[in-house]
């Protein structure tokens, strides 16, 4: 089991097929890329060929959407095996997925579904994270999701649940800034309580993304630029956690690469503003060693 904390990578983007050629032709100022693991669980062809070239030039992390760690259905060993094979090819700095479930009875609902925050669910998830980490031979990184409902049976807050999973299962956390913002709005909790409620030493990555506001609730759509309120919360997040690998997530209405690079520069400027250029540079040097 790899036990040391993954390196600080700087400011990255999600790798999307629309941008493959531009990235390879231009070597844009992007520090690293996150791939959606499922998109590369294929036999061959252009996507894997492009990925191989990106991997040669940039650090890459693998981000899954269907591990279904909180599902009561058995773990899918064929999927885990495929993930492990892909990891051998990509050599990711870490492998992440979501603290959620995606279906039961052999069905995949292709959504990140919420968990009741109970002791029972906690024990179940901790046990499963342990099994997955043993299988992959490395620590897993888990992301908090956006949710639209809460359960009557919940016994603790989301951040208490997330923190307990991380501590008991000994895994890393991906702190999704937008998801905290969305869930805080939907369920009426304070983003700051969540921010200060999770163990700092466990957080290895941030996601920043856009969403859709429906007045009474917010939907996590990843199809808009990051809004000012989420940037404000990102500022607080960086001030609290210090330098953590940051990534802009865009899954729909994908704009030209230059627009995403501009958004990434905005994240950089916030981090520089909050921490000072020196702190970021020092951290990069440490990571390089």
């Amino acid at each position, binding site marked *: 089991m790899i036990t040391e904390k993954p390196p600080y990578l700087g400011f990255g983007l999600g790798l999307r097929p629309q941008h493959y050629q531009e990235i390879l032709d231009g070597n844009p100022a992007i520090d690293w890329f996150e791939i959606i693991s*499922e*998109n590369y*669980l*294929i*036999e*061959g*062809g*252009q*996507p*894997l*060929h492009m990925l191989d070239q990106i991997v040669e030039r940039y650090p890459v992390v693998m981000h899954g959407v*269907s591990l279904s760690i909180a*599902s*009561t259905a058995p773990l*899918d060993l064929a*999927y885990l095996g495929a993930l492990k094979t892909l990891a051998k090819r990509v050599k990711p700095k870490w492998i992440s997925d979501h603290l959620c*479930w995606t*279906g*039961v*009875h*052999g*069905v*995949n*609902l*292709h*959504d990140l*579904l919420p968990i*009741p925050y*109970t002791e*029972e*669910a906690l024990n*179940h998830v901790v046990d499963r994270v342990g099994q997955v980490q043993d299988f992959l031979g490395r620590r897993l990184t888990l992301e908090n999701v956006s949710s*639209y*409902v*809460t*359960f*009557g*049976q919940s016994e603790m807050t989301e951040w208490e649940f997330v923190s307990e999973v991380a501590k008991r299962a000994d895994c890393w956390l991906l702190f999704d800034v937008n998801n905290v913002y969305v869930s805080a709005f*939907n*369920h*009426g909790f304070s983003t700051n309580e969540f921010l200060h409620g999770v163990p700092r030493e466990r957080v290895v990555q941030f996601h920043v993304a856009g969403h859709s506001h429906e*007045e*009474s*609730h917010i*939907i996590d759509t990843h199809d808009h630029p990051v809004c000012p309120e989420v940037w404000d919360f990102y500022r607080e997040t960086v001030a609290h956690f210090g330098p953590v690998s940051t990534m802009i997530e865009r899954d729909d209405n994908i704009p030209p690469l230059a627009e995403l690079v501009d958004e990434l520069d905005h994240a950089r400027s916030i981090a520089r503003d909050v921490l000072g250029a020196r702190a970021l540079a020092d951290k990069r040097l440490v990571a390089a060693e």
Partner: protein
Amino acid sequence: MKSLKELQDTFQRGILAGDDAILDEVNDSDKEQRKVLFGVYRHAYVARLAEILNDDYEQLHAYLGDQAFARRVKPYIAANPSDQRSARWFGRHLPAFVKNSEGFAKHPEAAEIAQLEKALADAFDGPDADPLGIEALAALAPEAWPNLVLEPHPTVIRLTFRTNAADIWSALKDEEEPPKPEHLTEPQAIAVWRQDFMARFRPLSTEEAMMWDEAVHGVRFGVLCEMVATFGGEDGAELRAATYLKGWVDTGMLAGCRTA
């Protein structure tokens, strides 16, 4: 209190079957009722899968139009819950579904357009293999040729169409007015495969299709030439067979050869 397993069963039924029992387990928010909030999951499920089918069957969608396509998509989603980790495979049953759908008996071209789109997608990310180079054949001794056995590229998919679906697909792809659907008097043989990372297809003549189908079953080149002679006449049979073979090599339809 429901167990986690019971809760997930109820939640999933709430999405797939519209069962409202889940509403007893979730809370209203300060700003919204639980039915609306749970509705976000119900709506997202159908919308996401419909979008996947739109992306995977772009030309079928263009051919049928928004309304007729949506009328097929809804029952498909209801009848085929996704059973794969990747959404890439969700639409794989659509060609058969369209073929067997009510109202499509008179429009067999729709299912064939879907079949072509699925084959192109499968060729696009199918297994890798280096294409057979012409130099490998050039190096063969003349006496080795009759015993030559060809290996197809693993992405090649052979289709047989009874309609002009391929022409309709091509016109739609080029954003041109598609030809009227026709039932062909002779079925049309189509080969789909990947060359230089691009999925492509082309019609084969009945003779070329016959030779290809025999070749990929391991029939030796000498016998293939005899079959071509029987099929299309002895005059120039070897030249025709060699021309087909050169076409396959030039466009990456073969991945190897050996002498039996």
